[in-house]
């Protein structure tokens, strides 16, 4: 199954490349965001400071934002019941949730700590966007990363709801889908991606996936030994049947439930998971419908003839 839609352009020794993002050492400096924008010449987003009460003013990954440092703002004391705005109410446009600024200002709760996660395209083994793309614009490269070919994409938008991580998006001004390429152009020249290069704390590590995963597992053991029991890997080291989207090319070390980082607890390629069942159900119903129409018209004519 691997590399079934890959392009092979003379890099026979290419290996699967990926990111290991360690949230325990991320300081939220956003150097990766800036480096990504600079290298890929991505446009400004016109973001405003503290939009919606969060210090995370990037908001989400988009067609023009391929790295996003997610700010997970936790409150103190954590055991206290959360004030209503945080406890549930997501913003209407779905861009996150609001912090209880009034309560913070009144000193009832304090912004205790941040956890940062530099979010990025996961470059899944079973990529939903890749399975959905009807034009072949999305491809798997020789590094087993997923890229959009901008000269092929016609902006049909089917990849957007097919991504279980909400990564890929269509640029409203440009009309095409765009996302992280894992700096395919830099990889071809033997350089590491811009975000990993710029990361000052090595929260983003880049390398061949088969070397990254053991390194990340060692890091988890180390954190457990230091007493951080909640540390775990998201998207790597799972048994095959439990792998998230078949295993992620860009995986994460997390310390809280994945939902706190806007990640689904499980994911798969929707076209693979649901496509056959949905198509079979639809076709069966359609066959029944066709038979029903024919039978009904025939019966009506027979009755009239009698």
């Amino acid at each position, binding site marked *: 199954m691997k590399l079934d839609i890959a392009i092979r352009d003379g890099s026979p020794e290419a290996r699967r490349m990926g990111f290991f993002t360690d949230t325990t050492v991320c300081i939220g400096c956003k150097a990766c965001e800036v480096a990504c924008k*600079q290298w890929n*010449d991505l*446009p*400004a*987003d*016109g973001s405003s400071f503290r939009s919606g009460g969060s210090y995370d003013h990037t908001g*989400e990954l988009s*067609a023009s934002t391929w790295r996003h440092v*997610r700010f997970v703002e936790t409150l103190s004391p954590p055991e206290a019941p*959360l004030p209503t705005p945080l*406890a549930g109410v*997501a913003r209407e446009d*779905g861009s996150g949730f609001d912090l209880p600024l009034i309560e913070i200002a009144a000193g009832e709760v304090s912004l205790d700590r941040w956890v940062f996660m530099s979010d990025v395209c996961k470059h899944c083994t079973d990529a939903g966007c890749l399975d*959905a793309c*009807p*034009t*072949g614009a999305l491809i798997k490269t020789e590094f087993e990363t997923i890229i959009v070919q901008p000269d*092929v*994409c*016609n902006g*049909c938008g*089917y990849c957007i709801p*097919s991504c279980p991580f909400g990564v890929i998006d269509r*640029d*409203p*001004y440009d009309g*095409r889908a765009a996302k992280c390429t894992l700096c395919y152009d830099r990889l071809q*020249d*033997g350089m590491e991606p811009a975000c*990993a290069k710029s990361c000052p704390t090595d929260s983003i590590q*880049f*390398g*061949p996936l088969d*070397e990254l995963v*053991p*390194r990340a*597992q060692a890091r988890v053991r*180390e954190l457990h030994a230091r007493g951080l029991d909640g540390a775990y890997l*998201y998207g*790597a080291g*799972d048994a095959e049947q439990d792998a998230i989207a078949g295993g992620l090319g860009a995986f994460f070390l997390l310390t809280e*439930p994945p*939902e706190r980082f*806007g990640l689904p*607890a*499980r994911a798969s390629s*929707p076209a693979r998971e649901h*496509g056959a069942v*949905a*198509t079979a159900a*639809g076709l069966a*119903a*359609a066959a029944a*419908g066709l038979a*029903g*129409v024919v039978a*009904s*018209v025939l019966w*009506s*004519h027979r009755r009239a003839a009698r």
Partner: protein
Amino acid sequence: MSRGRGAPAEQRIRDAAPASPPGRDTAPAVGTRGEAAPWRRAVEGARVALVREAFEDASWSFLFRGESRYAATTKPGRKSSHYETPVGPVGGGAGHADEPGRKSSHYETPVGPVVVAGPVIKAPVWTWEVPLYFWFGGIAAGSSFVAVACEVAGDQRSARVARLVALGAIAPGAPLLIADLGRPGRFLNMLRIFKPRSPMSMGAWCLAAFSTTLSGAVGADLLGRARERRALTGATALLGTYLGSYTGALLASTAVPLWSRSRSFLGPVFVCTAVATGASATRLALAATGTRRDHPTRTALGAVETGAMAAELILSLVNERRLGPLGDAMAVGRPGRQFRFAKSATTAGLALRLARRAGHASSVAFLVSGLVFRYAWVGAGKASARDDEAVARTARPA
């Protein structure tokens, strides 16, 4: 974050920037849209100045000497016992928490409700063209069924009307879909590859094939070639089974909770609407072209549209009940209003038909409710994708 209102952000920044002083370029570097950096080297095989040949991370940095020991634990040639036990989230893995050195995992046993910090997935960007196409495609598929039924029953005239209804319904399909593309000029890329896994690809091929065989059937009829007409009408109906059902499969094959959780129902529901609207449209066309009231085809179509719409209503209600809280997206806001309206229109049409005082009102009601159902399904899917808690719950089955 750009949402497509007004000028692009980078353009606004450029416009607001003061003019460059002479001799200097102080234009803000705010990027260009759409193109990634070029993936082909300008000069093939050229070396990049100062490039390091091997991949590396920043583990040489002084920042890590004390704090994180990546470099120490991953030195080549040094066997580490850390490598042996893979540690990671194993969903539903019983006994996993017993693993030594791993007292608890937030991942497996979340305490209490987890605050979901969304967004998790992105809502579809499709606009009004797509549900309208679903409706037209459904009518075309449904009337192609009617055409082949009339052929089988030997009712040439009704078959001709049904084929023309199908042709009229499928004609706006491709233009609507092209209008919804981000780059309409590249619509032919849809037929660049044949990808059975992608319902969108298969749908594009099916639409092309359906239009071709349908036009062929109409042409064969005009030329008076009976054998070709029958064969092409049959082929059109077979393609129609996919055309009328793939739209549901297309929505179900996404990460949107409402759609993917309705995967066994969306196709059948869309087929019911397709058969009903196709029969209604053909029935109205037959009436308009002077088919008498008690003509057997007209009677049969009345029964077909009633039966199909009743089945649609039942399937929808069963699905809604089955979905539970996930179905909330179908009850609130504009999609909720649309669902309620469509259900009322359907019920009214069914009641009129059962009371035998329908006239054409039932057919019109079914056509309208079929259209509103399509808009409601697409709109509710968008709302469901924005409901971060629903997305998170779908991904973590209890």
